[in-house]
């Protein structure tokens, strides 16, 4: 049995759909800004979906950065603590419609949801095909990363190599 010991900042999203890829932009910016943190992995999870299950199950600390739909105005910062994160999306139209929620839900059923789990997201403004972030989201990204650093600090992980 693998131990749950990894500490991961996981950026998710599809960078081909503008704001949908914000998590990836965020984690890359954080890594560029902070550099090496002892024991912390900066991971671009892209749209790997279920392929991230093994990684998640090995984490003691998992900070997820992602686009989030909370029916808020575009550019709103959203934070969800572990117990607030929905672990499944209700209605499925097809087997291919697997979101990250299902991945967390599966880890949970298997008893391996990371003990320290937090999600920071931004309500997207523009999900059309394209590479850059919308102005609303680009403006909030630094604040998302500030929040990310606060969480890492709370977790005692902001120690440099």
């Amino acid at each position, binding site marked *: 049995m693998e131990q749950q010991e990894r500490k991961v900042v996981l950026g*998710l*999203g*599809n960078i*081909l*759909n503008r704001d*949908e890829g914000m*998590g990836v932009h965020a984690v890359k910016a954080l890594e560029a800004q902070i550099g090496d943190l002892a024991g912390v992995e900066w991971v671009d999870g892209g*749209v790997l*979906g279920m392929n991230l299950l*093994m990684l998640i199950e090995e984490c003691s600390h998992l900070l997820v950065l*992602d*686009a*989030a*739909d*909370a*029916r808020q105005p575009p550019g709103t910062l959203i934070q969800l603590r572990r117990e607030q*994160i*929905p*672990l*499944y*999306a*209700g*209605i*499925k*139209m*097809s*087997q291919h*419609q*697997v*979101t*990250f*929620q*299902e991945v967390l*839900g*599966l880890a*949970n*059923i*298997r*008893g391996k949801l990371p003990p320290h789990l937090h*999600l920071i*997201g931004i309500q*997207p403004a523009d*999900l059309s095909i394209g590479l850059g972030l919308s102005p609303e989201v680009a403006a909030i990204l630094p604040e998302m990363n500030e929040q990310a650093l606060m969480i890492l600090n709370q977790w005692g992980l902001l120690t440099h190599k």
Partner: protein
Amino acid sequence: MAQRLVIDPITRIEGHLRIEAELDGNSKVAKAYSSGTMVRGIEIILKGRDPREAWAFAQRACGVCTTVHSFASIRSVEDALGIKIPKAANLLRNLMIAQQYAHDHVMHFYHLHALDWVDVVASLKANPAETSRIQQSISSWRNSSPAYFADVQKKVQSIVDSGQLSVFANAYWGHPAYKLPPEINLLAVAHYLEALDWQKDAVKIHTILGGKNPHPNFVVGGVPMPIDLNSDTALNAERLSIISDSIDRITEFVDQVYLPDLLAIAPYYLDYAAIGEGLGNFLTWGELPGEDNSDTSKYVVPRALILNRDLANVTVPDPRDFDRMKEYISHSWYKYGAGETAGLHPWQGETTFNYTGPKPPFQQLEVEQKYSWLKAPRWNDVPVEVGPLARVLAMYAGGHQQTKDLVDMVLKKLGAPITAVFSTLGRTAARAIETKVFADTLRATYNDLITEIKAGNTRTFNSDKWEPLTWPARAQGFGFMEAPRGALGHWIVIQNGKIENYQMVVPTTWNGSPRDHKGQAGAYEAALVGTPLAKPEWPLEILRTIHSFDPCMACAIHMVDAQGQDLGEVGIGLNVCVS
């Protein structure tokens, strides 16, 4: 217009399927219609391409039946060009095929089919000590203590308490047609979870021999993995050892978990020995060839045609037979140059989309006209079923001893006559039986491989006809594969080094097909007739039979609707994955 029960989408399958059923006065299915609701055009994409890379495109038909289209593709090219593969390559391919069966069928049983028979929520009423007693009475599997089952039960309880049923959501828990005692429900749920772990190991043969799973790599003329015991980048001693361990884990789970569970569950559902098989006609292309892939007499699974359930008069269908192997489109959203009622042999096949169905959203399909993206393949104008039941019958009739012993053992345990195999229960049992047969070939094939390696026969690729300059100007080939879901064929026409035509007739095309030019129903449609529904608004019984076929719609119709159905609000989305 008759009132019809509509189930769309059918879940716990691969792909996009819609079933419409008319019920009689007693809530039994009187008529059923099967519609594939998505299409992609892989056959069209392949035109003009290099035959040597066709496998990579064709494979993307589906990641669940991963490898199957690649096998059919490379075999079609090897058949067209007369390429013989080295013996070691054939053994390696057979290892990959047998592993595919074991992985795919176990996953299907637990993660796609089981919840039709197993009431997860009812497992909360189980007594863990009694569950343990039952487990120990059916198998020597190691996870069998009362504490273990109590743990699983606690896990299910916490999922239910959380209000987020997760993968167990949106189901028919409490349906009157669930018949298992709470303890067997708990046992099955425990194994559902264990199978998730097991399956990670069960794909190692693919990842080692093909680089990854899903979608390992292939090559026309052999396998892309060289054998060299002293190399870091080849099939070496360490990797052979990993394969050997994986084989043990596979066979252990099949023998000690899958088969015993099937035998523990089946007695509670013996009514399904008289439900769910409509056509009585079965077809296989055969599988697990010897070194000469074209010698069908050496296939472990024979190439066979069975008509009217007659196991005494089995014949050998010829895929090159222009008069008998045909696809019809009278009720399918395509058009043929030769007209609506024409049937085309795949070497002359055409894929021209012609959607004439209702504009969504709609209540019902127009079943007197075209109503599916699946074509209607027919053998000699007769609809057939393909898949585990077809294969087990072919092996049984062909005198395959192990198959015969397993079938007889299962029938004896259930107190059922041979006619019971022609049913949903029979098809489900056939899947488990053939899993054991295929899994058991793994060790023997591995041992043969070691023998070849020791004899120095380590060539895994035949490059003789790799260069297009060595090919004739025109060539036609047929590539077969018995995919877990049934007989798969690829027909290729190569002209001046490029693919001129490529047609895939896929297991689910046969099984899920709509009516043909003569109005004859396809396998699903025929199988559903007579199914009783205890609670029609929860059509669980229909799902039991459909799932017993293990539909793979992505394979059957080769499109993605780029409009991306307007899903509307999908709850509180995190990561609204628009890709």
